[in-house]
């Protein structure tokens, strides 16, 4: 399906904010993602997955420029048509606990929509976001940590969660290293946690079996069984 690009501006270092027109009948849950076909050529061949940060007037996506596909994506202009499939994946599973959102880098994106959703339901949540540096930050809410100390607290965002106990439930998304550190912290502090994972994807809806990750219940598909998983399930 195609929709119209309404905005595609740089909002932080290598980070862009893509807004798409909401197609008629489009439904989504926070935590889901779209698969974008970047151009009409066979290179890049496969669609690329991007979390839906939020949907209201527009579908909002934040993306980081990494390689082949995202380097082309950034040249889209207002008014261009873009080809998507989805939304795919499960929404975040809502827990009846004190809620914390913890994101690192571009992994903050899917949490924006979750925050927005929780606010709309009057559910209180605490947000902790980490970036390498001030120039990488693209959110204007939540407590911030930066590795170089240029914004918020100096250090890893994981450090900001030291005070949590088992009354909390964390939704986390970010680079592998951060997620692993969070898992150790969760083990230590006893809070529960869902983490949103990434994997190379071909289809996005469970047919290629390419996006498997290893869990204590065998291989699972990030696209269909996730992208969020209970952290205790993951075998790193």
């Amino acid at each position, binding site marked *: 399906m195609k929709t119209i690009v309404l905005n595609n501006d740089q909002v932080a270092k290598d980070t862009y904010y893509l807004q798409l027109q909401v197609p008629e009948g489009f439904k989504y849950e926070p935590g889901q993602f779209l698969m974008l*076909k970047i151009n009409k050529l*066979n*290179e*890049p*061949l*496969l*669609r690329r997955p991007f979390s839906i940060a939020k949907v209201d007037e527009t579908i909002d996506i934040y993306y980081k420029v990494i390689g*082949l596909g995202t380097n082309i994506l950034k040249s889209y202009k207002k008014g261009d048509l873009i080809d998507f*499939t989805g939304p795919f994946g499960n929404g975040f599973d809502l827990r009846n606990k004190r809620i914390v959102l913890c994101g690192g880098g571009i992994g903050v994106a899917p949490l924006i929509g979750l925050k927005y959703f929780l606010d709309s339901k009057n559910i209180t949540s605490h947000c902790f976001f980490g970036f390498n540096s001030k120039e990488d930050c693209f959110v204007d809410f939540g407590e911030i940590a930066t590795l170089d100390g240029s914004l918020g607290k100096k250090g890893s965002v994981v450090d900001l969660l030291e005070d949590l106990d088992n009354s909390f439930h964390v939704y986390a998304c970010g680079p592998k290293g951060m997620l692993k550190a969070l898992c150790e912290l969760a083990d230590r502090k006893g809070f529960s946690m869902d983490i949103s994972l990434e*994997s*190379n*994807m*071909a*289809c996005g*809806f*469970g*047919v*290629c*079996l*390419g*996006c*498997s*990750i*290893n869990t204590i219940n*065998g*291989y699972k598909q990030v696209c269909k069984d996730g992208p969020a998983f209970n952290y205790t399930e993951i075998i790193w």
Partner: protein
Amino acid sequence: MVNLEVKLSNLRFKNPVLVASGTFGWGIEYNRFFDIGLLGGVIVKGLSLNPRQGNPPPRIVETPCGMLNSIGLQNIGLEKFVSEVLPQFDSIRTNLIVNIYGSEIGEFVELAGRLNNYKQIAALEINVSCPNVKAGGAAFGKDPEVVFVLISSIKKVCDKTIIVKLTPNVTDIALIAQAAQSAKADAVSLINTLTGMIIDTKTKKPFLGNKFGGLSGPAIYPVGLKMVYETYEKVNIPIIGVGGIYNADVAVQYILAGASMIQIGTANFVEPDISLKIIEGIRRYLEDEEIDDVNKLVGLAHN
């Protein structure tokens, strides 16, 4: 009006467009995009007697105009397939083809024999590209004698249409096709993926969990097309062409090379309804060329 209907042994297909094993799940997943009953047929993912976990991740990576996969034939096994998937095909008006494999001949034969009982199944596609445990891991499909014995054995226990899916990783694919023909296979499909790999220069290790993977997608279509072309000159049974088909022009090239039907694989991931577009594209080509029957196109490039 042009005729798109094709026949294979005692089966009729609405049109020559099938979807390739491993790229179309159990079929039903694609119903969210279009009515899969419009396809010539659906080849479901590789089935084995017992459930299989598949290979460790990462399992896929993109390559120039292609992709590598090392899924490792993950599947739910016969029992669950029969109880959960098959009933859903009662109401789907297209030919269901089940792609099967085993690690030794006995496993293939048992599986084929048991699948023979289900009326929802039109045909079996025998995947001989998987490693042969008894022969030390080399694929069944690389040895014409093994293919002959395997297919002959399957034919004894299964009277459904038998299609043999050949691997391109051989010196002479037509030789293997001939072995399948001698064993009374009803058709051959070619090609499966080319073996390939990618190394991650950051970790300095093979990128895929399984090291090697199968290369598919547009990149490989000239190779598949050539193998269909040369096999067409060496066998009399129908050929089903597969490998890198991403639009109607490439599909027509395969038919001109000698394929009676074609399969769409990797392109299903990129464009879930590409197979419908290709059916329409073949129809339009025939109209433009004023050819009234797709069967008349088969092998024309040899004239």
